[in-house]
């Protein structure tokens, strides 16, 4: 007959088992990490191989050897090249631009056109970032949701208006994406300053869910709903 070991012995055994378990788990975790890193390097290596193959197989890349280094260049150099190229290409338009800049409406037009060109916006953002870095003034990039919003209970607000106000609580990027879905007849406000700004707050998702839920749309009404 096998007798149970004394309690003290059991506890020692259990301690050594849990220590072993911990070691095993640590080893497994290390294994996972190593596999992750291996995968990453394999992918990176393949990426570079593909790039090389692409360069070697493409005659236009071979001719324009300078272009080969473009992906390796730092963003600032790429932007500088872009600005230089743009400067040269737009040389004939400069007199017209100068003329436009003389008038406020013209300046506004130029500014709005420039803002629509993504690389230029990036460039402007880059320059702003540089300036901010040097002045060392930190401004958090917070999306300021509208506060002190009028209550729907006051003054006979329509369901459509209440729904619109609720969607205004969402960040600019989410609002821009929702724009095409016609959730409200009045378009959502576009944020021209930072149209890409995204909030990852979970509450945003919940508010979106509540606002597009059957019950909510029934109460508030929505554009195009049957």
């Amino acid at each position: 007959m096998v007798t149970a070991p004394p309690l003290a012995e059991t506890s020692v055994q259990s301690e050594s088992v849990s220590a072993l378990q911990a070691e095993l788990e640590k080893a497994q975790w290390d294994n996972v990490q190593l596999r992750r890193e291996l995968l990453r390097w394999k992918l990176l290596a393949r990426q570079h191989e593909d790039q090389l193959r692409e360069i070697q197989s493409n005659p236009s890349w071979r001719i324009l050897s300078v272009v080969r280094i473009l992906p390796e260049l730092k963003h600032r150099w790429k932007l500088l090249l872009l600005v230089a190229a743009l400067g040269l290409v737009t040389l004939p338009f400069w007199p017209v631009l100068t003329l436009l800049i003389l008038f406020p409406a013209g300046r506004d037009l130029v500014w709005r056109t420039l803002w629509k060109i993504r690389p230029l916006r990036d460039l402007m953002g880059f320059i702003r970032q540089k300036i901010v870095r040097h002045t060392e003034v930190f401004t958090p990039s917070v999306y300021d949701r509208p506060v002190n919003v009028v209550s729907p209970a006051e003054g006979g607000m329509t369901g459509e208006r209440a729904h619109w106000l609720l969607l205004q609580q969402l960040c600019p990027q989410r609002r821009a994406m929702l724009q095409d879905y016609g959730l409200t007849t009045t378009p959502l406000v576009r944020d021209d300053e930072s149209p890409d700004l995204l909030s990852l707050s979970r509450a945003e998702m919940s508010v979106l869910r509540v606002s597009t839920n059957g019950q909510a749309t029934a109460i508030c009404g929505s554009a195009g709903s049957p």
Partner: protein
Amino acid sequence: MSMIVDLQESEGWLAASQWPSWLTSDWLSENDARLVCRLTHPDDLTALRAIAPLPERLLAYPDYSVLQQHLERGDRDKLHRVFLQCLGAEQYVTIAPGSSPPTSPIRLESRLQQGKLESCKPQLAFVSPLPPAASGVAGYCAEILPYLAENYDITLVVANPEDLDHSLASMYETIDHKQMMRDGGRFDRVMYHFGNSWFHYEYFLLLQAHPGVVVLHDAYLGHCIISNHAQFGTTELLQKVYASHGWAAMPDCDGPVKQTINLYPACASVFNGSYGVVVHNRHAKEILYQSLEPEMLTTLGEVPLARQLKRLPDRSAARQELGIPEEITLYSTFGMINPNKCLVELMDSWVSSGLANNPSVKLYFVGGGNRDWEMENRISNWISRLPDPQQVTLTGYVSSEEYDLYLGASDVALQLRRNSRGESSAALLDCMGAGLPTIINAHGSMSEVPDETVLKLNDDFTASDLAEALTSFATDTESRREVGRTARAYVKAHHSPATAASAYRDHMEASYIQSPDVLIDQLQADIIGSKLRELPADKIFACSDAIEDLMRCAGVRRTALAGSQLFVDISSLVQHDHQRGVQRVVRNILRELLLNRYLGYRVEPIFFDSATGYFLYARAFTNRFLHTAPLHLSDDTVEAMPGDIYLGLDLCYRVAQQADSRQWLQFWRGRGVRICHVVYDLLPVSLAEGFTSDEITVYTNWLTAITAISDRVACPSRTVAHEYRQWLQSENSGAPAIPVITEFQLGADMEARSGGGALNATEQALLEKLQHQPYLLMAGGITPRKGHEQVVEAFNELQRQGCRLSLVIAGSIDENHQHYADRIQQLGDGSSSIYWVGCVSDAMLKVLYQRAAGTLLASSGEGFSLSLLEAAYHGSALLVRNLPVFREICGEYAWYFDATDSTGLATEIKTWFGAYRDGVLPDSSWIQSVDWQRSAAQLANSVIPARALSGRSRLL
């Protein structure tokens, strides 16, 4: 835990004279119970943990004023009940101070019941591209729809219902994405089919609005995300990579977009937004386990890819239709033409195997779709160079009828892959289902196909391996037939649409029933939805936010970020970098933590924003700090989950002291976030004469505050740890449980990753001046504690004695000590051997260390000394005051002095200088130093608990 003991309000328990005698740690253990309590005041937590048995089983959550203000009692009770359900307990009791042991605990209805439907055929919104869309997913979904329809009343959700295949349109109700967005709330179930192409892009937003179960056809979603490049450029891709993989992934995203897409699945939003996720193979699961943290993947399931066995035309009929002679052995490869199909290797092997010269064989590339012109041109060029260009045919895109003809006409199929994104190959199953002997390589999910059903090459096969396989099948007809029969039987048994549809249903029902997210979404819709006509929008948002936070307290993953978080508090650094020692430490450790992929935590720098009264993610700062491409992410309020860690790395006194910021640390600690702080030194306590009474008071208050709220305190040296222990004893602070005290070393390699930069003209001129004279270097901020006064006087004395040793003083002047610095400068004004170089660049400091005869540290007290470590790291001999902290770091590899006056120090320096000329100084390069990478790892190890990894390694 099987029982919750609800203490209700903390206030009552702290006012009560004594804790119930029956509510002991033994009682909690016996009943497998945990305590839950609402904190009337944030600081109640400290006192409550002092009186509660097993404080680790106490869950304390905030008393959300916004919910108290805007929700009625009934709604709050409903909310509380869901909160308790989410804790996963079977029963609960509510007790008050002085109450007797509970006799009849209330049973909590299991949350397993919440998603069950009474109707036998639930309404299902089926969101997927469908024929005639040129997508593999579209064809696949059309095949499984009839089988799903046996269990669900299906509504199809497609981008353009008017383009939908007529047979589908006539069988099912169809709506477009806009209607789904507006009207999706009416469905009992939603199923999304996500693939890595532009067809699926809009599903991200639909999923956010109407969660459901996701069938993930590809583990990587980069191409899908970037398909909206016109609207958001690469920003959206970067944002999703950040949310899925954290800051450590961002430097990899500085390269070409293709690199980002290939490296990172970027699919966390699919897991965060859905109730469950299904993949079709084990390889996809492996990719996800390797790329995301296991906490995210609890809802992940596997369902075999469905494939209907087709009624194909017989071989002769098909060949007659296609104009292929009977006697020809036909090799075919099916699917879109792209580099991932190993077609280059196939072309090479075709020639090397000799088949190119065999008039009785032909090769067909069947398929097109998303055309890869480069690859097609390459194949066309290759064909034109063959001895018989008619031998190989590139069919281009074919209709499903033609596709079936080619399947029926073929003798051997070739389905080779590389660069798998976790997809399952439908074309492979088509070939196997058609009874074709198929040559594959063991890549990705194809490695899971049983060996006897195909001719399987190694993943990284060579051209000769493939050539051998091609020739063996060309001659061995019997073997071909046998493999084909086995393959067909395998597909019939394991991939039938009926089996897959039933597995989809099981997974979907289980997800809807088990996921706490369903319960919380229903609650939000119920409580918040009913307030839409009453409350202003901002209050609705605030209520929703509070409910989310409450559910996070219960451990439900309600956050958009993947993985557990290590919050690094840099409240001081984000405002202003004072360029002192502590900031240097914070910058270096922060950088190393951010770039470390092996922590098992995503590192998130945070700061307290006094304007909003919240801790915010420092995303804008970190973006700039790491010099990564702009992410355009908002600095949102921090979303803390049980198991996360807070590390007070920065020396910011106000965070732990002031009530508005400290309350968050208490709230987080109450839900199981480990609170850790770094104590750099205790100089205001141990060297009080060097500080004003205000400084001492502020410091002591801070030390008391962090002692009360921290689980761990990390010190940069043994001496500091010892001093902290002594302080705890002397204070007898009455803290219920003192923090665990750990140690770590500071890095010595300056700003290792910043490169150091180049010397400017002034610095070069100074170096030239110093070139031919030996000098002692004093580096570090100029404060009374550092002993500059004594050193300058000693050098004046040495100059009078004709000693040829110079002194170089490098370091910034603290504005609080400007008068002191002026006085020291006046003292040394007459001396030609003293150089004041002020604050210098890292590059200059490095050269100064390397060229110095030695480095002098005359501090009367230090917690850590970066200049000491840096000097040793760069091989400079050390002349240091005899302090315990210096003894700890340097051991026998420094020259110590005890002199307390300038004359004594002058004598010591003279002796030291003699030893220098004789070359007999202790060699400081033996001092053990670490770099910042190691230093950050040591700190991380001292704050990160050993984690339960059983779930993590389940698959791997």
